[in-house]
């Protein structure tokens, strides 16, 4: 075990961490506008990736088309989750959407297990034969693609949030939904749009997970959900720069411990990382220092 191998493991993890960052941003954004957790978000995203495989049944589509379709399908799933778990439940019952989305998570998970008979399905990969050498370090082409697409998703999300009227409305609702409504923001429409858009990016992240692992399996559902949630919490619920940093951190940390302690133990250390953050920085990475209340 040399220092080089450690650095290599951290770099691979950082590249893969881009997917966690995108999923974490999705959790954070939905929390930001609705102040509720959508537990089914990662499941809906992966379901989108699954749905995009359907097109390969009919035509021989290039990998890029499949990735885009995954985003579109996950956007639709995001909208369905919104309609089933948030739209018709009164705001004053905070437990109900939480339980409903957990139910949705179980429903999506179980449907996929039933439809695929629990078998992992192969997912199209791109650039898996490309290798980039940088000094002593090697970078896998497919992981670089994952990282690049992840960065592009984050850039697009930040652009949407900070440079468009839709983003302005979203941020207004996150700050004060009543005031935003008084300024003419249509709350239901905006919420639905947020779910569809975060779903879209989540679907692309789901496709990236599939493309870097090479397969999609129902076993991914819960770990990705939990890591997305952990990323959102470590970054500070509601903070987008926090989610980006936390996603990369969790990716690197996970791969480092996979290298040091093996694949079965690595997730324990990710959970421990969460508890370290809860003790030392409960407000998230970029939270302003707060006095005791």
């Amino acid at each position: 075990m040399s220092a080089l191998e450690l650095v290599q493991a951290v770099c691979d993890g950082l590249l893969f961490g881009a997917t966690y960052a995108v999923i974490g941003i999705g959790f954070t954004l939905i929390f930001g506008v609705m102040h509720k957790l959508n537990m089914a978000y990662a499941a809906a995203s992966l379901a989108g990736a699954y749905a995009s495989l359907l097109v390969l049944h009919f035509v021989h589509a290039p990998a890029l088309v499949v990735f885009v379709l995954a985003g579109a399908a996950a956007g639709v799933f995001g909208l369905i989750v919104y309609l089933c778990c948030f739209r018709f439940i009164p705001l004053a019952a905070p437990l109900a959407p939480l339980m409903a989305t957990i139910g949705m998570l179980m429903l999506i998970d179980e449907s996929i297990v039933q439809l695929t008979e629990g078998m992992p399905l192969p997912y199209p990969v791109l650039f898996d034969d490309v290798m980039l050498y940088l000094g002593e370090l090697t970078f896998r082409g497919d992981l670089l693609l994952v990282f690049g697409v992840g960065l592009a998703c984050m850039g697009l999300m930040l652009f949407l949030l900070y440079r468009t009227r839709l983003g302005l409305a979203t941020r207004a609702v996150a700050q004060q939904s009543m005031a935003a409504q008084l300024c003419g923001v249509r709350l239901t429409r905006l919420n639905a749009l947020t779910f569809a858009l975060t779903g879209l990016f989540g679907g692309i992240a789901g496709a990236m997970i599939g493309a870097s692992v090479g397969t999609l399996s129902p076993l991914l559902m819960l770990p990705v959900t939990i890591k997305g949630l952990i990323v959102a919490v470590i970054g500070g619920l509601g903070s987008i720069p926090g989610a980006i940093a936390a996603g990369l951190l969790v990716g690197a940390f996970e791969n480092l411990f996979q290298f040091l302690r093996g694949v079965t133990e690595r997730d324990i250390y990710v959970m421990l990382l969460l508890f370290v953050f809860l003790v030392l920085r409960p407000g998230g990475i970029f939270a302003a220092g707060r006095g005791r209340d």
Partner: protein
Amino acid sequence: MDFYLGLAQTLGVHALLGLSAYIVLLTGQVTMAQAGFFAIGAYVAGMLTVIAGWHIVPALAAGSLVTALVACAIAFPALRVRGLMLVVATIAFGEAVRLFFFNFDYQVWRGEIQVGPLGGEGFRQIRYFPEHGWSTLEVMLFIWGWVALALAALWWTDRSRTGAVLRAVGEDEIAAQSVGVNLTAVKVSAMTAAGAIAGLGGGLYAHYTTHIEQGSFTLVLATFAIAYPILGGLSSVFGTLAAVLFVQGFLVEGLRFLGDWRNLLFGALIVLAMNLRPRGLLDAATATRLKRLFAGPGGAR
């Protein structure tokens, strides 16, 4: 007959899980840690009877105590965050416990065979009841004895000053704090009590199934645990008990003929129930109406 006795055992253990979630929910905290507590209790009590050769009652007590200590330790960092962050923290805790037991090997020779937890294979041969000649009926009564004890303790707590303090924190933390309630102490105590009850349930579960493995302690189990008090409403412990009977007795056992589709239906049913009755099946308004119905005309105010 044995089928119904076995079902009664499952109901008893799930009642303990539900009560564990109930007491934390009284303080307004939603935790998904019950599956982790349950696993710790199951492994500790199982190892004490199988490897150390203890009697079942001290083993259960020790399992419950260890779980309570873990719950107390986990409560301090977890309760620094409130509301939905706590859900995430406790989910992570539950998964960490599950993964810990997935990697946990501790086997000893006992006669001809090796016994003890073996990672992903699970922990087989927890044969205290068969070895000591307990019949299924006796085991069932033993489990329900503990359930009755926990129910009575919680019912009494609910009626005492302690119960009022718990509910005060659940209703409005700031109001409770302003009348001199120590929020941290109340929440950590509730979490510790929840750990003790769930650990007890885990110990009983390990002994009646004789085989435990990490795959039984997933998020699904935690969801069940928190679903009981939410469905049953928080007006009384008996709501939780009724929810356990309804979910495990009717939904899980009664719909077994649906086979694999049952699990699909389960998720859909939760979504539907939360849309139709967002405050629980037995919310405060319904409970009052029921009370009035049973009290008869003029009997209730």
